[in-house]
């Protein structure tokens, strides 16, 4: 308990530098207007790009669709698994880990060749919701699993039943409110994953926010830096949201 190892501080310092120095350089570069002048030119021309808003909207729509899939498909499936089929846990764990172990690029290369489907699905970017759901699965699964384990779902359900409540009432009145922070956390994480996903969108030729960042980066360095800065801010905001939902609940006890 006495000394914090030198190696520890060193690693911590290096990690900090790795994140902070590029961030500061990015921010200052985004403000550089050439010849020693600094200002918001890059931000202005970035915001003037006609494809900024559409690509942002596509990404946000995809993010929301993925969140919906997480809450409507994954959460109920996990609740039922915990209650009635705990033996299936390894199967769930395996499926939740797959998207991370199978390289996305291998998946997309295979899929892009093979996936066929009705035009109303394949013709729109919403088709991406399916792979994105599975990309977000590891994070969303982990967040919801931690939430479920924290509340001893089986005992709560049995307590509710012995008090005369139906399974529907128990899920509505007890389980979902108790899992609220975990669900919000899993949605924020999924949203962040979708906002940053580049591989699928790029290979499948959809023009999402991440693809735009790359495009801008190829031909307008300062705008790319501005976009990176904005992107940092947005995702850090989401991250803070996750942390605060977690903490607020632990301290105020709204639903924990």
């Amino acid at each position, binding site marked *: 308990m006495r000394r914090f190892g030198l190696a520890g501080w060193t690693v911590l310092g290096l990690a900090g530098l790795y994140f902070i120095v590029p961030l500061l350089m990015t921010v200052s570069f985004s403000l550089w207007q050439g010849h020693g002048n600094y200002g918001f030119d890059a931000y202005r021309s970035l915001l003037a790009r006609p494809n900024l808003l559409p690509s942002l909207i596509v990404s946000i729509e995809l993010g929301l669709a993925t969140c919906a899939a997480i809450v409507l498909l994954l959460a109920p499936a996990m609740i039922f698994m915990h209650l009635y089929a705990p033996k299936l846990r390894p199967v769930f764990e395996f499926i939740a880990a797959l998207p991370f172990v199978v390289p996305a690029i291998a998946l997309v290369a295979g899929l892009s060749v093979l996936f066929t489907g009705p035009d109303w699905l394949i013709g729109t970017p919403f088709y991406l919701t399916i792979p994105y759901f599975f990309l977000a699965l590891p994070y969303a699964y982990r967040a919801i699993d931690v939430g479920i384990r924290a*509340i*001893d779902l089986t*005992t*709560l359900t*049995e*307590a*509710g*039943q*012995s*008090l*005369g*409540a*139906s399974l529907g*009432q128990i899920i509505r*009145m*007890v389980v979902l*409110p*108790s899992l*609220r922070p975990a669900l919000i956390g899993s949605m924020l994480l999924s949203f962040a994953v979708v906002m940053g996903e580049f591989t699928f969108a790029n290979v499948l030729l959809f023009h999402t926010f991440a693809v735009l960042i790359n495009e801008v980066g190829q031909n307008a360095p300062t705008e790319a830096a501005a976009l990176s800065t904005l992107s940092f801010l947005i995702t850090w905001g989401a991250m803070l949201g996750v942390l605060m939902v977690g903490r607020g609940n632990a301290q105020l*006890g*709204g*639903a*924990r």
Partner: protein
Amino acid sequence: MATVEARGVSKSYQGRTVLASLDLDMGEAELICLLGPSGCGKTTLLRIIAGFITPDTGTVHVGGRDVTALPPAARKMGMVFQAYSLFPNMTALDNVRFGPRVAGQAKTEQVKRAGELLDLVGLAQHRDKYPHQMSGGQQQRVALARALAVRPDVLLLDEPLSALDAKVRLQLREEIRRIQRETKVTTVLVTHDQEEALSISDRVAVMNGGKLLQVATPSVIYRQPADAFVARFIGLAGILPGVAEGAAVRMSNGTILPADAAVAHQSGRSVEMFLRPEHVRLQRMNGHVPPGALAADVQEATFLGSLTRVRLRLPELPDHAGLWADMPSEHAADFAPGQRVTAHWHETSPHVIAVEAAQAS
């Protein structure tokens, strides 16, 4: 407020018998403890009564009504769990009024009833606290109030005290007894703690290997255990193996020890003589061993406050024979480890059980 009758209840999991055709009758307002080592089937029996487990055979009647096919929600039973089972998103008051609420009572009724029950368990001033703001003992009190709020026919307590500190456990034990007396709810309490079972129950049901070995009042269980398992499981007992001879028992070294006249009809059989430590008296060895007494060495003396408990080694008897003796701590100085003593007792004190009788008689 209702009788409970379990008839021929059995349950197996993957060929392993957990309950073997078991019968249990409970009177109105009775408190029965299901007591036994882990794996004896006591929790399975409780969960069958609650409706969380369907028995393979047999029926459960409550107040004369067959509830075997009813789901838990329709059984009118309150249950308190070992793990903290309060709804984490609700205050103490909201937890307690959950039952009346899903039953569709008017809200003012719900709140009034919940307030009364929080009063009963002594937590009126904590009604607006969330579970994580309460201690373990307080949470279990709220769980008790919540279970009572549905005016259950039967109250089921699944090791409600085992997660608590020793001090809180003692308090809450008395509290449960008081509340059960006041509300007169027929109550089943599962426990592996024999002291808890003896102190709280109207009757104790001792279980082992999926069977009921003995169902009787605490004092009968303690004084007249039905078989060797109960005798070993309940309280501390010295064990002297021998052969019944008339109204006495002959040890392997030839010593004849007096026993209850009831032993006479077991004459010639291998028996075990059980002796409670409070019945064994010691004298320092002064040369000879009087008839009816045993020679022993003091192995260890443990100070227990008012009493000192002495463990004896019996050099002339087989290894699994042993005795304990309790004495007032004032006299313990005479019986330090290593001291040679003679042990004797009143002839009505030993409880003699035939070795073959592994079953409840």
